[in-house]
């Protein structure tokens, strides 16, 4: 019974993995990049001026100036907009800015969209930011898959997540020596080495893999299990909205304060909030539902308690009195569990150390999937060699080539996305869309390239291309903007410098991979020539006596 059980689990592991490997790899890589969403965003908006908190010890007077400038700009640019936001420098986004919801207007051909501008605190000017998808679009791709309708994206990613969970559980079942081989990696042992590294990449971050897969499924459960909502609340968007209202209802505390209703303004709200919460820094002020009965101010803080964001505060006028509303978290325990998984998945609370750990864990997950693909190919090539079936060999070669195009092509495509941000003309129409097109065009180009190369060469060439493109990113940044690594460090603009340095790090990693391949090949060649020489000498020694 047991051996058969393990065998069938092995079959399930192989084919569940094979079915969704490419999609999962895409999800893991773009999702990992998502952990640095804000940092990528900053790099892709080079117009932003970074504010250093140690520059202005007298924080509040400076904040008043910003508020004044922001309000003036918003009045000018967005007088008809229902929603205004003013951003103050925060830990992950150390800059000031304004954003507003632009309403659709058929006369001036405006579409409904969010607009934003950066504010330069030195001269009080509002700086236009180039149109870009930013880190946000890159991160959103890991669950909406971009080109297809959103709902299909959600369903496909959920499906991939389910297969991933199956892969993880069956993987644990079929790994006989999970503790004994916990640290084992034998790089010189051919196929065994691939299995070892696959195990290392799966077992060591296993808590992360299980958490990220399970929580990912939980996050999309209202899509995949919408029938459950249908049964109780009825079908259709309106009915589902009822469900969300009930499920996510919050405990709220309302309090009347001494502020006079006619004095209520951005400045007084800011003042009140910053005296009421002395040890918390305000990161956003929003003016929501402007001009309607429900007009209110929203304050967000740049602070986490544990893994929860410090709750926001609302100011509104009610019964001729100013009232504040403080949310005290979700009311239902199910919603609280959902929230816990959501926070663990997104890792917004993470400081720079944890953020890198999240990122590395995600990439290890991608590595696990990639080595799984390699093992699938190697096993089948071995069998094909044994059986001498040339027709099967061809399909496997094709899949191997696509594997290269996916595994190395995706990082190249991401580099292509970053390049397009710097190189496309600033005034281009639909610029943000074209950035994403560039992403997929570069990926497609990689695929075509790999299909026409022998797979052995394809690995080496693709790795070289990846190493070169990542090394070029800081250079292009230097040429097209005034941000180079050294001046960024001097200006304490650590996000810009960190991004460029990380790109150099990735380039170095790809270069090491190229060197390893070269070394391996030379090693193989010397063994082969050795074997050939031995064979020759054996043949000649056999020939001699006759």
């Amino acid at each position: 019974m047991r051996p058969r059980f393990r065998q069938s689990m092995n079959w399930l592991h192989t084919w569940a993995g094979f079915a969704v490997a490419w999609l999962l790899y895409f999800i893991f890589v773009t999702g990992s990049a998502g952990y640095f969403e804000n940092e990528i965003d900053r790099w892709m908006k080079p117009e932003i001026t970074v504010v250093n908190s140690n520059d202005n010890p007298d924080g509040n007077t400076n904040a008043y100036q910003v508020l004044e400038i922001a309000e003036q700009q918003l009045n000018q640019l967005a007088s008809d907009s229902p929603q205004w936001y003013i951003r103050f420098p925060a830990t992950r986004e150390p800059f000031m800015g304004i954003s507003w919801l632009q309403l659709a207007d058929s006369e001036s051909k405006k579409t409904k969209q969010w607009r934003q501008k950066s504010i330069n605190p030195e001269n009080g000017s509002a700086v236009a930011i180039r149109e870009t998808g930013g880190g946000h679009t890159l991160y959103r791709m890991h669950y909406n898959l971009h080109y297809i309708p959103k709902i299909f994206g959600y369903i496909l990613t959920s499906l991939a997540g389910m297969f991933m969970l199956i892969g993880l559980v069956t993987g644990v079942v079929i790994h006989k020596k999970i503790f004994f081989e916990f640290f084992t990696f034998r790089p010189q042992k051919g196929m065994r080495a691939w299995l070892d590294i696959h195990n290392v990449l799966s077992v060591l971050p296993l808590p992360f893999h299980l958490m990220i897969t399970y929580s990912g499924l939980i996050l999309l459960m209202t899509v995949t299990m919408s029938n459950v909502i249908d049964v109780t609340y009825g079908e259709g968007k309106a009915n589902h909205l009822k469900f969300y209202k009930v499920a996510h209802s919050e405990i709220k505390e309302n309090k009347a304060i001494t502020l006079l209703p006619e004095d209520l303004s951005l400045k007084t709200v800011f003042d009140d909030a910053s005296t009421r919460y002395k040890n918390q820094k305000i990161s956003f002020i929003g003016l929501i539902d402007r001009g309607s009965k429900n007009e209110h101010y929203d304050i967000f803080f740049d602070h986490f308690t544990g893994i929860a964001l410090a709750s926001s505060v609302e100011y509104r006028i009610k019964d001729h009195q100013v009232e504040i509303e403080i949310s005290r978290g979700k009311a239902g325990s199910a919603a609280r569990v959902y929230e816990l998984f959501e926070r663990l998945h997104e890792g917004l609370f993470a400081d720079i150390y944890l953020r890198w750990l999240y990122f590395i864990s995600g990439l290890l997950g991608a590595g696990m999937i990639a080595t799984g693909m390699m093992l699938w190919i190697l096993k089948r090539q071995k069998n094909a060699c044994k059986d001498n079936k040339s027709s099967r060999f061809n399909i496997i070669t094709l899949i191997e080539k696509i594997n290269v195009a996916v595994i190395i092509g995706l990082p190249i495509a991401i580099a292509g996305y970053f390049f397009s941000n710097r190189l496309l003309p600033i005034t281009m129409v639909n610029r943000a869309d074209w950035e994403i097109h560039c992403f997929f065009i570069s990926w497609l180009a990689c695929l075509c390239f790999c299909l026409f190369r022998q797979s052995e060469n394809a690995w080496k060439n693709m790795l070289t291309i990846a190493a070169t493109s990542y090394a070029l990113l800081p250079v292009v940044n230097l040429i097209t903007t005034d941000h180079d690594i050294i001046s960024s460090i001097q200006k304490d603009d650590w996000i810009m410098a960190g991004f460029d340095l990380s790109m150099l790090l990735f380039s170095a990693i790809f270069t090491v991979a190229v060197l390893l391949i070269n070394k391996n090949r030379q090693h193989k060649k010397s063994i082969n020539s050795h074997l050939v020489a031995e064979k020759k000498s054996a043949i000649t020694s056999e020939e001699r006596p006759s």
Partner: protein
Amino acid sequence: MSSIILQIILLLLGFTLLSLSMSRHFSQVTNKRQRLAKSTVWLFRMLGYGLIIVSVLVAINAWGVVLGLVYCFGTAMLVTLLLSLILAYRPRWLSVIPKMMKLM
């Protein structure tokens, strides 16, 4: 910051001892094939698990239960990954521990 460094040190020591409690890795480090005495295996294991438990407690004390566990699992991932790379490519780096054992 200091809690993070403490985490890394505690977990690195703990997992190193656990890995050395296996004859395979101990042989890798000392560069000769040998079977470990039962008492040594137990000593390494107890110390290793002990250090890991201590690091979990330290993390929970520093960051609270949920965040502490996140830090702990994350750091454990980093440390074990590092350790398996050291064991594969530079096992001699760990020979300090067998040497110290001999001195005792």
